[in-house]
């Protein structure tokens, strides 16, 4: 099944008199269960693409379908609901609420959820933290956690609503190489469970953990290839 279908996406920013073409005709299809790395030089439009995919921003032109829903036609409310129920975002800077426990941070998307399941928020948040291996740090506040642990809380928060896709914009950009491997192994285990992942990175080592690598330049995709599993760097 196609989770994401992008057709000729353009994004134009106007800064004063200048126009910046951040995305210049991106077409892309991503299937369920894929693990995609997006690479490219700084300013090539990776974050802009992620923001469009994550429904934080809307394309200036082009079509975007998420699980068959036409996102390009949606209003602000609908976009918020899509972000809540279908998308999990992981940021470079973690973006956790300060002075709020890990558990409550993970619960947060559930509070804005418009369709509730029978399972309690607490239980869902606990099991999400369990999946990222942080069940023993649930009551810790972000300032009591290491960078890697904070990022794992953020991943749990992205997971908690069973999204169609998890988007991660340079998730390891603020982490050292050992912690980076921790996070990548979390991603791998999630992907092994069938979760679709898109991750932006400019490090080839990190990208090599994905199954498919897309390379961007000047707002277009210049390379899109499946990584041969044999070529994958194996963590020591």
């Amino acid at each position: 099944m196609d989770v994401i279908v992008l057709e000729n996406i353009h994004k134009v920013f106007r800064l004063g008199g200048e126009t910046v073409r951040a995305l210049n005709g991106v077409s892309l299809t991503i299937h369920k269960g894929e693990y995609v790395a997006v690479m490219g030089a700084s300013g090539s439009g990776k974050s802009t693409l992620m923001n469009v995919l994550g429904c934080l921003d809307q394309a200036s032109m082009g079509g975007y379908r998420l699980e068959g829903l036409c996102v390009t036609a949606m209003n602000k409310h609908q976009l918020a609901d899509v972000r809540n129920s279908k998308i999990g975002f992981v940021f470079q800077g973690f973006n956790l609420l300060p002075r709020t426990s890990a558990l409550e941070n993970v619960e947060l998307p559930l509070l804005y959820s418009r369709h509730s399941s029978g399972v309690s928020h607490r239980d869902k948040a606990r099991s999400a933290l369990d999946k990222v291996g942080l069940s023993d740090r649930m009551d810790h506040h972000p300032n009591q956690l290491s960078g890697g642990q904070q990022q794992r809380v953020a991943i749990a928060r992205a997971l908690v609503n069973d999204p169609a896709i998890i988007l991660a914009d340079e998730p390891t950009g603020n982490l050292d190489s050992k912690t980076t491997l921790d996070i990548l192994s979390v991603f791998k285990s999630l992907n092994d469970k069938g979760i679709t992942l898109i991750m932006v990175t400019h490090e080839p080592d990190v990208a090599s953990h994905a199954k498919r690598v897309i390379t961007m330049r000047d707002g277009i995709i210049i390379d899109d290839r499946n990584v041969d599993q044999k070529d994958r760097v194996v963590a020591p």
Partner: protein
Amino acid sequence: MKWQKLIKVAFQSILKNRMRSLLTMLGIIIGVASVIALVGLGQGSQADIEKQVSSMGTNLLIIHQGSSFSGGVRGGTGTQASLSMEDVAALREKPLTIQYVSPVIRLNEQVIAGKKNWNTAIEGVSQSYLNIRNYRLSRGSFFTPRDIKAKAKVAVLGKTVVDELFPGQDPVGTRIRIRNVPFVVVGVLGSKGQTAMGSDQDDVILVPDTTAFYRLSDGKAIRAIMVSAVSEDLMTDAEADVRKVLRHAHKLPEGEEDDFHVRSQTELISVASKVTGTLTALLSAIAGVSLLVGGIGIMNIMLVSVTERTREIGIRMAIGARGGDILIQFLIEAVILSLIGGIFGIMAGVGIAFGIGKATGTSVVVSTWVILATVIFTASVGVFFGFYPAKKASALNPIEALRYE
């Protein structure tokens, strides 16, 4: 988001900046405290006046001599503008709407008892005065119709007079001298306290009207006639009857003005309540201004809070909060801030009102509806002044908010 969660988040944010929150609330606290204190004292003194008037008797009519246009030039000659014992007799006889009639002959005299003396008001009244004024006797008895007929030299003392002339003693049966005329004390009046204007109602000696008229007053005119209507509903009828009888007795031709005027207690109430009402309204307006200033303070701090928490807003939006969710969150924070201020203000205001009430001897009435209205009003202040900052927060662009440092 659920209400409990929203309220919890609002409290967390308020408690995070305790000092700042308190200073922000100060305007509301001062405004609410002054409103509550003023209204409490205003309603209290209103109640005092009403109690006072009803202790005088709500069906009481007081007739004074002279035109109601006092000071105006009155035409006509011949008729002496004074009230007489004949007027009293005429009022007693005719109207069905009138229950009790008593003249009041009032003198100020030095009263001597043994070695002590005291300057007080002597009132010559009839026996029914007791009923008209709702007096109780704390000791002895009142004078009888026989005393009145005989112009008996008997007196009933008010409590203040007893305290001055007979401290710690029972005066019944002893003698006092008024204008060198010896009187026997037959009774003591129950205490009535002060009037709303502060005069002592217990500083009085009652004697039979005949005695006062013939033995003490040197033929001075009757100061007033007090009449009580059969019931409160018949006040207007009674007043009309009084006028008819007196005009007839004074032989006033058609078209001639009354040479007396009739006042009722309800009239006094409305005048008094008008005065306290305007005063309260005026002071409340001032208090309202400080509430306005308090509201602006809340708006200011909420704007600061929205700016400080831009990133938090971005995070919440990124994970699916709608603009409306953010709006409600900040609105609730503003309302809670304002409500807490309101509650502190109510407590302070009640305290101040009772403090001032105790110091000045006025009653304080804090009615539940005033508190309820204040709570609703402060909540509205929160909504009104919180709306703009909340709207601003809800309109933020999530990407820009997330990038905010």
